[in-house]
């Protein structure tokens, strides 16, 4: 398996009582809560943590994109990938991902990703997402065109990387006389593409398609959903006539390792609870603007998932349902082994900093994961062909 430390970069120095007077951590939480002096320190701390992961032997580090929120300080993940590009010695950087539909000129994404790919001399993973519902309030992008714009921007970016330029591109939403980005990507024909998802059928069909075979990453899901969605993805690959290789699937989840299960729970609890009950928190109409999904799935989601999330999620129940991997290195490695053997994924993107988890515990977590978990499970999910090649 390959291991990617995924950072969300929360603005963790926020007044802990902010939700007593605000509805949400997103969109319209006043930015007077953001102190640039503290924010600057956090950026550097978080970049240090990502660089530490490189020296500890993680295969890669990941950043992502969110806007107008205390949940994450990365409205432009490419800025951070650029900063990392001069410091990472071995690790790959993944931007997982950029929200394609919310930009009006997706060629900028093709250009910036190609720049990072050049700077990293090919150690780069391009992630494409639609962006969660909140981004549609923050960017004013019409959620009713989200899926169309995602598909069209995707086609444009991939063609910009792989078709010789200049060429014309005239879609419904994007129109160019000259598609001709400089630089071209370092990797040939293009960087690998990851599709982080919470399991929509359209995404599974899209990512698994033989023309694409994108790495499908399940994020923030109870283990039962991870299992279901990975099976759906493998099944879809079979429908398309091929077996899904391990490297084409991955799982991103918060994880915490300590000396014992009890210590891990005790140390992680307040911080994982801050992630799930505060930083993620927003009312359903913030998360799910009309048109973002089909009418049928909108109804299903409104009635199901978000109702559950109205309840306080405590550390024990998050561990119980597998949203959160937490325990001693032995416990977590055993769980990963069990899940890997069952589901067949070849990538793990653990979020080893989450919510208010402080620097010392984050570094301890990174070290224990790298030194005591990775060696126990690295051999899993590696195809025989890859092993033979090595």
């Amino acid at each position: 398996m390959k291991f990617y430390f995924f950072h969300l970069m929360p603005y963790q120095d926020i007044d802990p009582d902010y939700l007593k007077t605000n509805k949400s951590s997103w969109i319209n939480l006043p930015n007077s809560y953001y102190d640039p002096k503290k924010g600057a320190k956090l950026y550097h701390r978080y970049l240090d943590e990502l660089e530490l992961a490189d020296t500890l032997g993680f295969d890669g580090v990941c950043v992502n994109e969110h806007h107008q929120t205390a949940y994450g300080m990365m409205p432009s993940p490419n800025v951070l990938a650029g900063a990392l590009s001069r410091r990472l010695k071995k690790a790959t950087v993944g931007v997982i991902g950029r929200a394609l539909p919310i930009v009006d000129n997706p060629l900028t994404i093709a250009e910036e990703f190609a720049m990072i790919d050049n700077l990293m001399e090919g150690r780069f993973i391009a992630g494409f997402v639609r962006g969660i519902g909140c981004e549609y309030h923050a960017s004013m992008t019409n959620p009713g065109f989200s899926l169309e714009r995602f598909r069209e921007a995707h086609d444009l970016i991939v063609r910009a990387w792989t078709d010789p330029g200049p060429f014309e591109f005239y879609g419904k939403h994007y129109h160019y006389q000259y598609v001709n980005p400089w630089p071209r990507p370092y990797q040939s024909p293009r960087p690998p593409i990851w599709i982080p998802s919470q399991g929509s059928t359209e995404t599974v069909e899209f990512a698994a398609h033989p023309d694409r075979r994108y790495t499908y990453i399940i994020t923030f899901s109870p283990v039962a959903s991870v299992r279901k969605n990975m099976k759906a993805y493998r099944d879809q690959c079979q429908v398309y006539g091929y077996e899904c290789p391990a490297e084409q699937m991955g799982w991103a989840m918060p994880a915490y390792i300590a000396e014992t299960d009890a210590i891990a729970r005790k140390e992680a609890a307040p911080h994982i609870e801050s992630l799930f009950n505060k930083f993620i928190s927003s009312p359903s109409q913030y998360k799910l603007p009309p048109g973002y999904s089909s009418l049928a799935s909108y109804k299903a989601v409104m009635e199901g998932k978000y109702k559950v999330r109205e309840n306080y999620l405590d550390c024990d129940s998050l561990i119980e349902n597998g949203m959160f991997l937490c325990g001693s290195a032995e416990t977590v490695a055993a769980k990963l082994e069990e899940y890997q053997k069952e589901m067949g994924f070849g990538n793990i993107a653990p979020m080893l900093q989450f919510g208010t988890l402080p620097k010392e515990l984050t570094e301890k977590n990174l070290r224990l994961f790298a030194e005591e978990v990775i060696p126990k499970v690295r051999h899993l999910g590696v195809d025989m062909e890859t092993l033979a090649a090595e």
Partner: protein
Amino acid sequence: MATHTSEKKTIAGCEIELLKGGNGPPLVFLHGAGGAHNWMPYMERLSEHFALTVPSHPGWGRSDTPDWLDGMGDLAYFYLEFLKEMDLGKTHLVGNSLGGWLALEIAVRSTAQIETLTLVSAAGIHVDGVPKGDIFLWDDNERVYNTFYDPKFAEARLAKQPSEEDANISLKNHFSTAKMAWHPRFYNPELQKWLHRIDIPTLILWGDSDKIFPPAYGRAMQKLIPGSKLTILPECGHLPQQEKLEDFISGVTAHTNGAAS
């Protein structure tokens, strides 16, 4: 009491539902974001004076949601076709909220089929420095309370348990509203350049306590439409046809009679 009927009509490959009732001069009512698939007291009252037609827009109510529906321009051209095909002669046109915006989009293109225009808390323009309400960020209860001046109207609406069909339609309407009005939010930046083209008698009705489009929007609209009259209704929210039914009816009848004489 006038009876009403429901009919279907297909235009541009899209079947829509029309509620119709009453006799007299023709009047077409263009509904707002919330739709109009149920016969309401204001329709009943309008049908006492007019041959009333209340279409459910493409994308709303029991009407189809056509693939071509991407923006307000599509609805405007649809209704120009509709007015021609319905063969009503010249009709009085009343539009509320998003339906008022639609009436403006139709009228700047052509007033050939329109006798008079009545705009009720109409969307369609932007007024700098006067924030609108955000119906997409309000929760269901806030949305209802912020629609009315008098919370009794909101309480009455919230107390009613919607049928399954009504709940599904309400969601469908909300989706179509977002498609039309998400960005730019409830207006067309091009529209106010051309509102001076409206050359028919125009009445603008507005609640003084409209929390979605504050009355400054009505005043700005009045300045943009030559010869238009503005009536601000006291203690009234976004839906005068519900909250101030008598004032709404007398406003429309006086305006249309005045135009006829």
